[in-house]
């Protein structure tokens, strides 16, 4: 099972990567030329920390895709993702001088953006389901619903659009944990720390999120199988 991921394995982290496009031209430029992220980051970062506005624009160009995509995945709404991207980079502008290089800049920025999104979600009243509720077998959505006939399994193939839709339809708390763990690659202890919940709660909500996705995908398969 060397390369076959199982639900027990967190995906390779995407958040530790560097900027995915070269910092050329303006912050809104669309260059996709590859460039070693660390070298580009280091030089641009140093100038941005010194207050160089052009360097900050370049830093935006380097990281905008990753941060916007993160926001979009976490909230599932374009307008909100744009606002959150804006807020994340404004916070970056305020705090960039405090970055000391204890971690990779891209990791630090990623964490900053996650915190911006979480703060926004909390303002909107997102509350994570309690561990008690999450662990309690629920006849409507608990493990019992997983006892489907084998011929209704996903058979190893999932329609990409269907999965994206199913993730978007997850309740906010489930989507958040699913994205943080299965897409962004955070560990349960990190998620628990970020969301101020227990590690057990993070594990149980992730599992319930996956079960909900499975149900949604199986439902779609059933509908497609109807004559």
């Amino acid at each position, binding site marked *: 099972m060397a390369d076959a991921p199982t639900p027990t394995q967190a995906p390779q982290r995407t958040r530790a990567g560097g900027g995915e496009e070269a910092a050329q031209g303006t912050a809104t430029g669309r260059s996709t030329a590859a460039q070693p992220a660390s070298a580009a980051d280091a030089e641009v970062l140093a100038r941005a920390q010194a207050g160089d506005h052009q360097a900050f624009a370049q830093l935006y160009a380097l990281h905008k895709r990753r941060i916007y995509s993160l926001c979009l995945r976490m909230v599932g709404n374009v307008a909100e993702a744009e606002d959150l991207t804006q807020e994340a980079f404004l916070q970056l502008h305020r705090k960039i001088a405090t970055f000391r290089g204890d971690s990779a800049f891209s990791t630090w920025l990623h964490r900053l953006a996650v915190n911006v999104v979480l703060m926004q979600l909390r303002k909107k009243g997102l509350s994570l389901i309690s561990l008690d509720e999450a662990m309690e077998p629920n006849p409507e959505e608990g493990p019992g619903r997983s006892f489907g006939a084998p011929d209704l399994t996903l058979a190893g193939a999932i329609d990409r659009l269907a999965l994206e839709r199913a993730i978007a339809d997850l309740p906010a708390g489930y989507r958040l944990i699913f994205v943080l763990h299965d897409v962004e690659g955070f560990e349960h202890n990190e998620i628990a720390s970020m969301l101020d919940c227990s590690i057990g709660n993070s*594990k149980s909500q*992730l599992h319930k999120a996956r079960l909900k996705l499975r149900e949604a995908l199986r439902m779609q398969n059933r509908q497609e199988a109807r004559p």
Partner: protein
Amino acid sequence: MNGDPSKMSCAEFQAQMAELIGSGEDLSAHPHVGGCERCRALLADLTTIVEAARQLFPSVEPPDEVWEHIESAIKREDKTAPNAG
């Protein structure tokens, strides 16, 4: 609950799945999974979902307006900063 994992019911096994998976256990080697087609299918589905999720969400470019708003906000903040010039 029966202490022997191979004699677990599906409900007992599935009630433990979140903790077992979250702890990094390889459930494909769990005695219950070996003898239960349904739970094996469930595990396979969850694995498929996790794998598929890794392929999702290609990075997306934010609209240019986002930077314009950021730039405007930075200029406003710079003007109101205590040491603004």
